[in-house]
């Protein structure tokens, strides 16, 4: 018994000793980015060893984007956060754990990758769905994420609204348009994966509105050719912002490492890995190189249409906002 305990202690001491010699970095990120960061971390570790000669260990913590933001705000010692909506980083900036000017710390609004919303339809597109208008037609079932519980859902809603506005609709007409779309929704997913499951595993609905990056994982998960991707004429640009968690790096002394970790996302190698995971790279050269995956599409930003995501949040998604009205006023 005691000898066993001793070996255990010795092993533990060895293990912690081994850890102490190399720095660790914790990346707080959203669910769907898990596979991307697994690939990216391996590349970064090799790169860091080559350039500085230091070993580094990277841990990942994943959950819904805002769940991660909440736990970081509440004290989770993540060195960096890599999110899928800027509201989540904004929240951390307001909580004082991320620099106020985080968006200016890295190129492209601190977003090394972006994505957009597009449609997944069943193989051969039996209902002939081409654009947002088709989603509001009677008899079409649309699977989307609940904007109250997922960033994916917020972008879907804003994309449809923005589309209507781009076509010259007034706010009232846009509201009517979006209302019609949500009338066609039989199941509101809680998050992106939930909606994908409903569409593919449960065979509900004719079209799934989701992130472009989800298309690759769908093909990987369910086999090629079960679904077709349809690019609408206009869609929204969804940024994937990153930031250093100042509170943690100050405590752990990992500021340099955290910055290097995020900088490397903008390197050609980092951008290539992102492209492989169907996230639109910031680098125009690599975007062009992968034009077959990232079809050119007219994109509008949240800023030009809604001011900012937090602005949109207030008007549309908070309690009593425009989205609630769709369901309570009939």
């Amino acid at each position, binding site marked *: 018994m005691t000898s066993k305990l001793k070996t255990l202690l010795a092993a533990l001491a060895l293990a912690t000793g081994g850890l102490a010699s190399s720095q660790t970095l914790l990346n707080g990120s959203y669910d769907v980015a898990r596979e991307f960061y697994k690939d990216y971390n391996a590349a970064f570790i090799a790169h860091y060893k080559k350039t500085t000669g230091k070993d580094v260990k990277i841990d990942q913590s994943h959950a*819904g984007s*805002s*769940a991660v*933001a*909440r736990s970081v705000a509440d004290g989770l010692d993540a060195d960096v956060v890599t999110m899928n909506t800027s509201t989540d980083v904004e*929240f951390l900036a307001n909580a004082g754990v991320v620099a106020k000017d985080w968006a200016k710390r890295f190129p492209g609004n601190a977003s090394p990758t972006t994505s957009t919303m597009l449609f997944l339809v069943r193989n051969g597109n039996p209902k002939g769905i081409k654009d947002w208008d088709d989603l509001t037609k009677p008899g079409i079932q649309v699977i989307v994420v*609940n904007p*109250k*519980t*997922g960033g994916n859902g917020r972008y879907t809603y804003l994309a449809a609204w923005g589309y209507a506005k781009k076509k010259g609709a007034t706010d009232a007409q846009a509201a009517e348009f979006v209302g019609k779309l949500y009338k066609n*929704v*039989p*199941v*509101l*997913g*809680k998050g992106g994966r*939930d909606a994908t499951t*409903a569409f593919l*595993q*449960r*065979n*509900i609905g004719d079209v799934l509105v989701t992130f472009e990056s989800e298309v690759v994982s769908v093909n990987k998960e369910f086999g090629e050719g079960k679904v077709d991707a349809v690019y609408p004429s206009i869609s929204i640009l969804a940024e994937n912002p990153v930031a250093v968690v100042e509170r943690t790096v100050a405590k752990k002394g990992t500021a340099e490492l955290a910055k290097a970790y995020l900088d490397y996302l903008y390197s050609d190698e980092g951008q290539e890995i992102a492209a492989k995971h169907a996230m639109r790279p910031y680098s125009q050269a690599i975007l062009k190189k992968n034009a077959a995956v990232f079809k050119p599409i007219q994109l509008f930003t949240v800023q030009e249409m809604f001011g900012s995501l937090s602005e949109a*949040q207030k008007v549309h*998604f*908070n*309690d*009593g906002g425009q989205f*609630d009205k769709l*369901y*309570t006023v009939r």
Partner: protein
Amino acid sequence: MNALISGAPSAGVAPPLRANAKRTPQRVLPGFRLTLGYTVLYLSLIVLIPITALFFKTFTLTWEQFVFAVTSPRVMASYRLTFGASLIAALVNLVFGLLLAWVLVRYKFPGKKIVDALVDLPFALPTAVAGISLTALLAGNGWLGQYLEPMGIKLAFTPAGVVIALIFVGMPFVVRTVQPVLEDAEKELEEAATALGANRLQIFTKVIFPHIAPALLTGFAMAFARAIGEYGSVIFIAGNMPMISEITPLIIIGKLEQYDYAGATAVAVVMLVISFALLLVINALQAWQRKNTGASS
């Protein structure tokens, strides 16, 4: 036996109202003050302090904000669904849980041990797994759903699906509270009743039922309480449509996703108060029941 009926099952949910039921001058455990102190400390650390924190978070809202947060139409609809579905599920469990407990106690059959172990499965299973399996079963292309939906019976992604998930998670509570009481029931009483000319129905209603009623109520209350707070299993099967199939815990999660901590705790407080009031009523019923029947406990 005493402990089985009143102590063990009800302790988890609400304190039994029987402090004055018996006066024993000689206590088994010495040092009443010490044990009471320990009890209060433990209860404070584990239950009272977290719940107080919940209330404090809510107090950051003004009264108007609080009322708005907890009475908006979507939230009201979710209360109706959560409490309504929980009540239905608990009632179903009351009937079938008793039946299950009865069969397990009174009959011998091959594989009884396995059936007995299966009862605990909803306790042990991660609720998300339960939700996913139920959805897979009942969805339009699932094993059962593919036969039911052509008949016009749609269960998954409707409030009916919510009830089914809640029945599943609440089932063990009734069985496990009633089972020991039934096991301890004295056969002689039934035999005496038979000897005195009672028929089977009379034996059940006059002899057996009063004996197990308190345990049954406790099981019901626990199944009900569990259903109200249930999230994981329901979320996959509910469809989560505002005003139709959105449970209150989802509203709370939704508010958290908007970083509306105070709003989320406000709804949580309302749930807490309603649940606590319901449990108190059930407890009072139980006490009244025991006094009225003078059950042997």
